[in-house]
């Protein structure tokens, strides 16, 4: 019998799934995105987390407060100093401990250096993600100087662990001020180079303008924070709204762009680097004399109660919620991580864009995966 083959729909197309990650160059870590794609167009992005989940929050419930500080390095490793500071500030707030002025200023300077280093790395990988490998090396040239300063100050380059509840682990290195000044001098000439290489490039503008637009309403609803939110015009700088350490005595602008696209998020971070430079310049010459630490007990016991402290890391608002029952360990400790809420909007933003756009959008969010997984 002759079999009849009828092609019902000769142009039948199918959506297909693709696993982006856990090992993928553009996810910068072990993030797995399950993409549903129609040709090149993204229909759905479903994040699958947990590949680097260490349950830091559970570990914190069995650790003393000094030990917890060490764990926070491993969350957002690019703003490790600021993470440490967040926990220390929470503990100091709970103990009603007033740290010396010197500590506040040093914390702020190193915090801003950390932000610079993080933004430099972000700029490098941003260029790399959209295809220009050269940016990476330019960024690392300058980041190396900051890491050298950190290394001399506290012995570590990435997971710094310089803060302890009550102050700093030890005083700054005698070279610190000079080297920081040298770096600022150097970086002020090199930051325009970043613009020359990437910002004005027509291909770069085409790749970023109008791509991955987050409206202000969405930014608020999804809890987007940091430079990502400020690219959408959401006033969200914790350094301005809830000043901590020495941010209440420096002049700086909160960088806001209203377009909400990848381009404006890029511009926010570039502009923030200038602001960070200005903050460091204001503080570096007036580090007050004094102690670098207030003596605390070997085992800190927080009073009974709930304490919340937020800081502005390079990625946005990091919140530390401590529910204490009066023991040496927290009863419950929660890190509200900026990466987690920024990741949650990825699906909403990336739908309908191309595969190449997804990479650009993710790069502009500046996700650090251990920060999301905690």
């Amino acid at each position: 019998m002759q079999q009849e083959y009828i092609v019902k729909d000769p142009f039948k197309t199918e959506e297909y799934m693709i696993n982006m990650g856990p090992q993928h160059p553009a996810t910068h870590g072990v993030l797995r995105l399950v993409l549903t794609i129609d040709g090149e167009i993204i229909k759905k992005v479903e994040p699958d987390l947990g590949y680097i989940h260490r349950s830091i929050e559970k570990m914190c419930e069995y650790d003393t407060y000094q030990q917890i500080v060490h764990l926070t390095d491993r969350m957002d490793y690019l703003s490790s100093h600021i993470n440490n500071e967040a926990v220390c500030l929470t503990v100091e707030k709970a103990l009603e401990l007033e740290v010396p002025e010197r500590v506040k200023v040093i914390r702020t300077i190193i915090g801003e250096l950390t932000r610079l280093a993080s933004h430099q790395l972000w700029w490098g990988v941003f260029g790399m993600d959209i295809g220009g490998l050269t940016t990476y090396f330019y960024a690392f040239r300058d980041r190396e100087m900051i890491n050298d300063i950190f290394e001399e100050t506290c012995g570590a380059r990435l997971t710094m662990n310089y803060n302890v509840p009550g102050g700093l682990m030890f005083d700054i290195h005698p070279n610190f001020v000079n080297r920081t000044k040298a770096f600022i001098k150097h970086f002020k000439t090199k930051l325009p180079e970043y613009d020359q290489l990437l910002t004005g490039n027509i291909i770069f503008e085409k790749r970023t303008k109008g791509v991955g637009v987050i409206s202000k309403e969405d930014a608020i609803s999804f809890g987007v924070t940091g430079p990502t939110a400020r690219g959408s015009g959401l006033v969200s700088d914790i350094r301005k709204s809830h000043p901590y350490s020495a941010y209440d005595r420096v002049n700086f602008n909160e960088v806001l762009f209203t377009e909400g696209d990848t381009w404006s998020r890029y511009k926010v971070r570039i502009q923030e680097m200038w602001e960070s430079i200005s903050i460091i310049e204001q503080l570096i010459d007036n580090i007050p004399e004094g102690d670098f630490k207030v003596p605390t007990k070997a085992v800190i016991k927080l009073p009974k109660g709930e304490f919340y402290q937020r800081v502005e890391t390079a990625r946005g608002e990091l919140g530390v919620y401590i529910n204490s029952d009066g023991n040496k360990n927290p009863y419950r400790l929660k890190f509200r991580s900026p990466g987690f809420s920024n990741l949650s909007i990825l699906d909403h933003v990336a739908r309908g864009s191309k595969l190449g756009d997804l990479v650009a959008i993710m790069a502009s969010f500046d996700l650090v995966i251990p920060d999301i997984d905690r």
Partner: protein
Amino acid sequence: MTNLELQNTIAAWSDQITFTEEATEFLTAQVPAAEWHEIALKLRSTPELHFDYLFCETGIDYGTDLGVIYHLRSTDLKHEMVVKVNTSDRENARIDTVCDIWRTAEMNEREIHDLFGIEFNNHPNMQVLILPENWVGFPLRKDYSDPVNMIIR
């Protein structure tokens, strides 16, 4: 609005809500689970409250009860408050989702679901997010024990 004004506005909605400002910097409201979704909607939509930014959603195990703590902020009115919702049913803990009101809750609730075992009613996608699919138990509960991986000092 000051905390007192907030408290007065919200207390008018239901007599089941209890307030405290003890041992915390925020005005803290304890809301019964049954009324939570309705109250959340009011918190978001009442013009003089306008809590549009859920900046922290925390699951917590009180030993007997399971709870969720919501840290809310109004981005334009600049006031903040904390809402706590508890459920005493540990086997089949259920709380209404608020991800239709604050969309950031979607991921946060999935995380809490994984780690505390609280099911969120009406959540669009209540699948495991962090843990492997065959995981047994809820790691952040106080009665969770894992003799191999947990080191307790």
